[in-house]
C-alpha cells in the first residue's frame, strides 16, 4: 500500500486539482494538489491516488523497471 509508482500526466483537470495519468497503459485520475506547475507530459510519483513528487523521464523509467521486477506494481 505504500508503493509509489511513476506515471505520465496526460491531461489536466485544473478546477478539480486533478489530472489523468498513464502508467503501463492504464489511464487513471490522480490528485495533483500537492505539486505546483504540473503540465501534461510531466512524470510524477503517485501514491494512493495523489502525485507526491515530480520525476524526470529517466527516473520514472528506472522506478517502473524496479517495481516491475519486484512485482510491486501488481498490488496497486
Amino acid at each position, binding site marked *: 500500500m505504500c508503493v509509489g509508482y511513476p506515471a505520465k500526466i496526460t491531461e489536466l483537470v485544473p478546477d478539480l486539482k486533478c489530472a489523468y495519468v498513464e502508467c503501463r497503459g492504464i489511464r487513471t485520475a490522480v490528485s495533483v494538489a500537492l*505539486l505546483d506547475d504540473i503540465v501534461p507530459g510531466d512524470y510524477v510519483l503517485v501514491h494512493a491516488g*495523489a502525485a*507526491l513528487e515530480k520525476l524526470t523521464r529517466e527516473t520514472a523509467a528506472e522506478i517502473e523497471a524496479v517495481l516491475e521486477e519486484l512485482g510491486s506494481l501488481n498490488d496497486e
Partner: protein
Amino acid sequence: MTNELIDQIKKNIRRYGQRLKIMEVCGTHTTAIHRNGFPSIFQEEIDFLSGPGCPVCVTGGAFIDRLAGLAKTAEVYTFGDMIRVPGNQTSLDQARLAFGNVRIMLSPLDAVRKAASSGIPSIIAAVGFDTTAPVFALAVELCCQERITNISFLTELKTLETPLRYLLAANQSIDGLILPGHVATVVGEQGFSYVPYYRIPSVIMGFEGTDILRGLLTITSSLLAGDYCVKNEYSRVVRPLGNLKAQALVDRYYQPCDTYFRGIGTLPGAGLKLRASYASLEHPDSSSLETISQHDTGCRCGDILMGRLKPNQCELFGAACRPDNPRGACMVSAEGSCAAYFRYRGGI
C-alpha cells in the same frame, strides 16, 4: 560494477571488524534486498533487519476488530492489504463475508467520491505513515469543501519518527539504517535529522540493486569514519525539505496523538488525529486506544519489527504461519518481512 561494490563493502566490514546489523523500514526495500539475494551475498557480514515502517504490520488487532464491527452498520473502505490482517477477534475478510460491505480502495479520494455518491453511511479506514497522511488530508479537505456528511474516518495514521527513535534507543546493536525512499519524498532529508543523535549512519536509498549496494557502501564507509550525518542517495526523487505543501496540509488537518503499534505498544505522540475543528469527520471509535496487547498466539511480529529476531526464528514461521494462512501481520503484507523471507528463502 556490482561485484566491485560488493567487494568494497566486504572490505569495509572486514576493516570495521564485526558483523553488522542493518535495518530498513520500508517494505519495498525488504523485498528488493531479498530479491537481489543480498542476505546470501553478505551471509558472513550483514544481518538484514526489517523495522516498524510497514503500516499493515504495525496496525493493532483491536483496530481491525473495531473496523470489522463497524461493517455491520456502515460501508467500510480500506486499502486492500488490510483485508487479511488478523485482528484479535476477527478480520476484515471475515466481516466482508458476514456483512458484504467492506470495500477495497486504491485511493482515499476515490473512496470519498464513491461513498458520497452512494449516500450510505460510510467509514474510511485512514491507515498509513507520513507518505499516506497527506492523501488522507486531501480526502478530508474534499469532504469539507463538498460538505459531505455521510462519511467519517477511523484514523490510525502514524508518523515514522517516534517508533524509529524508540527503536534506536531500545536496540543499540543496530549499525546502520536504510531510510525509505518514498516516505522521504514527503518529509525530505530534514525529516530524519534526529537520526545522527543515535550515532548510526543512515542513507536515504532508492530501490534498485545498485542503489542499495551504493547505500551499503556509504553506510560501511561512514561507520569507519565515524560519520553519522544522514546521506541522501535518492536525490533524484527526494528533496532536502521534502514536499512542503504535503507537510502543510497534514499540519492543517491533523495533530499528534498517542497510538498503538502491534508488538511494540502505545507510543506517545506517534499518531495523527483530526484537529478539533474537523472532529465531526472523525469516527468516535478512533479515539479508543488499544489497551490490550496482541493475543498470545505465539506470533513474534513485535520482536521481528524491533530487530530482535529474524522471521525464521519465530516458531510459527513457515509451519503454522504462511502467506496463505498468516498468523501475524508481517506475513500478510506482500512486503512484510516474514512474507519476503518466505517468498525468497522458500519458507526456511
